[in-house]
């Protein structure tokens, strides 16, 4: 098994763990962490598969750097929303989807 494939498979496993967490964990912090794990999995695959004959390809490295910046921004927004939700409802989880029946807020 080549190193590249090993990286890729590990990345895929991380992606799967992240996906499961995102879908199954009700707690918002866990969901946000799960999204970061999912993202890390993708970055690993990008860097892992990006190697050619042992030499390092700079382009995926640049992409991952950009991706990390984007992920941090997304995480920050998610945390801000989660915090707001905690203030509004006292809970760190999404309420049941009752949007059809909900009364008007304002």
């Amino acid at each position, binding site marked *: 098994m080549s190193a*590249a494939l090993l990286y*890729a498979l590990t*990345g895929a496993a991380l*992606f799967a763990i*992240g*996906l499961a967490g*995102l879908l199954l964990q009700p707690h*918002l912090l866990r*969901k946000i962490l799960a*999204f970061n794990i*999912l*993202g890390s*999995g*993708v970055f690993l*695959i*990008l860097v*892992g*598969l*990006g190697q*050619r004959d042992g030499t390092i*390809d700079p*382009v*995926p490295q640049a*992409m991952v750097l*950009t*991706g990390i910046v*984007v992920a941090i*921004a*997304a995480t920050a*927004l*998610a945390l801000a*929303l*989660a915090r*707001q*939700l905690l203030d*509004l*409802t006292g809970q760190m989880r*999404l*309420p049941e*989807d009752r*949007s*059809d029946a*909900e009364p*008007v*807020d*304002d």
Partner: protein
Amino acid sequence: MTDFLDPLPWLIVLPLAWGTLAFVLGPGRGGRLAVAAIALQGALALQLAGQLIDSGARVYAVGGWGASLGIDLMADGLAVVMLLLTQAVALPLAVYARGYFAASPKGRELFWPLTGFLLAALNALFLSADLFNIYVTLELLGLAAVGLVAIAGGTQPVTAAMRYLLATLLGSGAWLLGVALIYGTYGSVSLAVLTPLIHSGAPLAVPLAAALMLAGLLLKTALFPFHFWLPPAHGGAPAPVSALLSALVIKATFYLALRLWLELFLPLTTVAAAQLLGALGAAAILWGSVLALMQSRLKMLVAYSTVAQVGYLFLLFPLATQVPPAAAESALAGGVMQAVAHGLAKAAMFAAAGSMIVATGRDDIGHLGGVGVRLPLTLFSFGLAGVTLMGLPPSGGFSAKWLLLGSALETGQWWWVVVMIVGGLLTAAYVFKVLRRAFLPRAAGDRVARVPRTLEFSAFALALASILLGLFGAPLLELLAVGRAA
């Protein structure tokens, strides 16, 4: 120096700049700046369209670096049609938003900066020439859109924003994984480089990447059964935001799905997959329309209508896959026409709905009585937008339906004809549900206030545009054909 005046980069730089400035200037002056800047963007998009008609599709290397190291921008007919739609929807909505936030100021501070970023992301997305660049624009678009949903505060909008954020992050995660697989296989993310490389015998990673990217886009476009996040997000946001999201944001991801399917992954497409996409579209049309009919809140009705109308867009896939070229072109024209018509009409409809809610002070279809007397122009706009959504002539929606029906009959796929006709009748049912109530006299105890003139006229401008598109749609289709192999 000619480079400096090229409209391509300015379409991205301008909204970024005024979005940032609006943050500093505050909502009053920021809003005025936005209206002026969007008008300028519209002029730039028109100039670009003129260039394309004259001399064909074009590429622009940002900073003169060229691909692989630098970033390329690419403008063909399809991209410019979407650019025109974006500016055409954004301008009346900006005028509308100034009036709307004057009447109900919740969230007005953040509206203009986020809208600037949203428009920059949209314009950049349509002009992107590589898969990774598209990823960045997708994320910027998603974050700006989520922020806009949450600006008014309150449990329902913030919950909707959170749900929307998780869905959109998952969608772009899937996209990026696909990009990683593609880069691992071919060592490039440039659309121009990749398109000739991908063929039907590509390694397994490539179809896997295609499936992941497409699935991510379907989630972001809210195609049935991935529509769960859309109605609360679009129904709960302030009206100008709902309008921007329903008219433009989901169109951006649809546009990407279209590019992948018709260009990059064309050799990998199968009739079965296309029929599956069409079937999801059909389910969206029926399910979305029925749920729209069951809503008691006006904006939720309009939001479910979006779920249904997204379905029409995906009927284009079975109609354009492995059929004679003429039928495929007619299907593509119909699908894009539907995207444009729905963009204009849905923006008009959300804007009109917002005015009615401001006027009656509540979001309830049962209390619309008297609106027809007090806000005739708004109700007329809602009706005109409804005509487009129903696909009745003369309107952009009708032209779209005509083209799609024609291509369905030509390729013998009569089952999509049935879906479109039934969908049109269901649309009529929920549109007239609103119109009927609004025609009734005002009930005792209800109030219907006047709203600022700008609210009424901007909604009307959008609705009128969606109708006129049906009479003057030919130049748009001519533009669409630029850069496509005949």
